[in-house]
């Protein structure tokens, strides 16, 4: 299968801090790649670089063979990359349906068509009962669902999920894992940043581990969790003895 997302030698500094250093990775079509690492490892920064919220100091991001560096976030979304935010950012005073319609309008400006597409995405994430609820009244998991539905309504080919499971309880994590699994089954390419290892092991085809902005390991989930460097990054040296 072809690589649909290729990141090459991405670099980003914030003052003296090298937030992302020479990061390269690629994702095959239809695969789910998990990006893990301790807090501050550069995961969210990488997301912001890929989706146009930050400009990299150097490096390139290719999606479907097209360079994304230099494009604005809305252009990148139009190219088929949709993202969620680490902290859900619903449009609070809009209803669930209106929120998701905002995403749907990207592909069709007609209200009726957008409404239908939005309803499909809402049904997919299981929020149909709350279509008319103002987004600000939703619980945390429902806000995450809403963000996913809004992203899905833009008809992405690559979905970037930034910690969609943080703060969820066990049952909710299971539900979220099932949802991501369904998306993968539909053939969507997924890049997921996550801390919940149980979830990562369940959904990821490959894992890339970041620490201090650098890639320290990459491979199949089973390989990565047994990797000495990874364990050190998370638990400190000597912990694996």
């Amino acid at each position, binding site marked *: 299968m072809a690589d649909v997302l290729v990141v090459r030698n991405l670099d980003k500094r914030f003052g003296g801090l090298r937030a992302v250093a020479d990061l390269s990775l690629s994702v095959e079509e239809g695969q789910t790649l998990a990006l893990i690492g301790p807090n501050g490892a550069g995961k969210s920064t990488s997301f912001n670089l890929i989706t146009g919220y930050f400009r990299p100091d150097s490096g390139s991001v290719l999606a479907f063979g097209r360079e994304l560096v230099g494009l604005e976030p*809305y252009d990148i979304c139009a190219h088929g990359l949709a993202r*969620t935010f680490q902290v859900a950012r*619903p449009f609070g005073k*809009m209803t669930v349906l209106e929120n998701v319609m*905002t995403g749907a*309008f990207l592909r069709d400006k007609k209200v009726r068509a957008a409404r239908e597409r939005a309803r499909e995405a809402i049904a997919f994430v299981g929020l149909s009962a709350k279509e008319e609820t103002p987004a600000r009244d939703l619980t945390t998991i429902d806000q995450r669902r809403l963000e996913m539905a809004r992203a899905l309504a833009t008809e992405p080919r690559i979905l970037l999920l930034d910690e969609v499971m943080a703060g969820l309880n066990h049952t909710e994590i299971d539900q979220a894992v099932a949802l991501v699994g369904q998306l993968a089954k539909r053939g969507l390419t997924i890049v997921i940043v996550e801390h919940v290892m149980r979830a990562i092991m369940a959904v990821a085809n490959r894992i890339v581990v970041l620490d201090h902005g650098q890639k320290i390991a990459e491979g199949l989930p089973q390989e990565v969790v047994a990797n000495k460097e990874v364990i050190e990054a998370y638990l400190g040296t000597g912990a694996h003895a």
Partner: protein
Amino acid sequence: MVKKAAPVIVLALIALILPVFLRTGFEIDIAVRVLLFAFIGVAWNLMGGYAKQLSLGHAAYFGLGAYTSTILLIKFGVSPWIGLIAGGIVAMLASLPIGWLCFRLRGPYFAIATIATAQVLMLLFLKFRDFAWGAEGTTIPFLGNAPLMMQFSGKAPYYYIALGLLAIGLVVTWAIERSWMGNYLVAVGEDEDAAEAVGVNAPRIKRDIYLISAFLTALAGTFYVQYIYFIDPNTAFSFNVSVEAALVSIVGGIGTLWGPVLGTILLEPTSALLQSLLGASHGGVQLTVYALILIAVILWRPTGLLGLITDAYRRIVRADG
């Protein structure tokens, strides 16, 4: 559908027959001002309310509309009806560079930058002596009853022109609100970054709504000069216009179709009555009372007063079955 349209039809009928019941020039003058400022509020609200781009510089467009039509009228003998549209176009053209500069800023910085743009235009027009009469301004030559030149002997025609402008503003807002554009504007107003993540071209939608808002505001400027027969930079680019535009929307209900109308109906007559009751005897007191009313409304109902009315209306409709 019928139930939804009913209050609008009732309001429209009241507005149409109201001049019959207004006896004095003072009363009809208040009515004209209510309609005019409601219209300016509606124009402001498209950008400031729906997209939450809080401009405090809409006087720039009010003034450009006023000056464009007046210059065309006095120097070239062009009817203000044509000047009306020309002023709108000048305002749209001006909104492009102004928006290009100001939209780089967000929140309060944006508001401050827009204040500056209106002030700069006022200063420029103070200097334009040959071209726009400088600081003294000019009166509009009175031609008697000349409808084609937007001049009338009675006040009622002005009332109906202002009503027409307001109707245009409301129809434009209504159409935008129901379309993708309304959705995009609210999305940008709620969270610009999140909107861009789902494909909303925020800079473009802000530019577009600024064009529309500037155009409409300029129409109000042209009309106002024709109504008071006088123009000078302090009137045309008055900071009061910018503030009133925002204020009526905020008090009535920001980002709602009827909010600016309700806000103006409450504020404009209050201000005029306080002025006539207290202005002469205790100078300055009317402004204090006005400010206290504003503070009370904003503390008590920060989202505007429209919510109260719609809730009450729903209760009545439901009681009817």
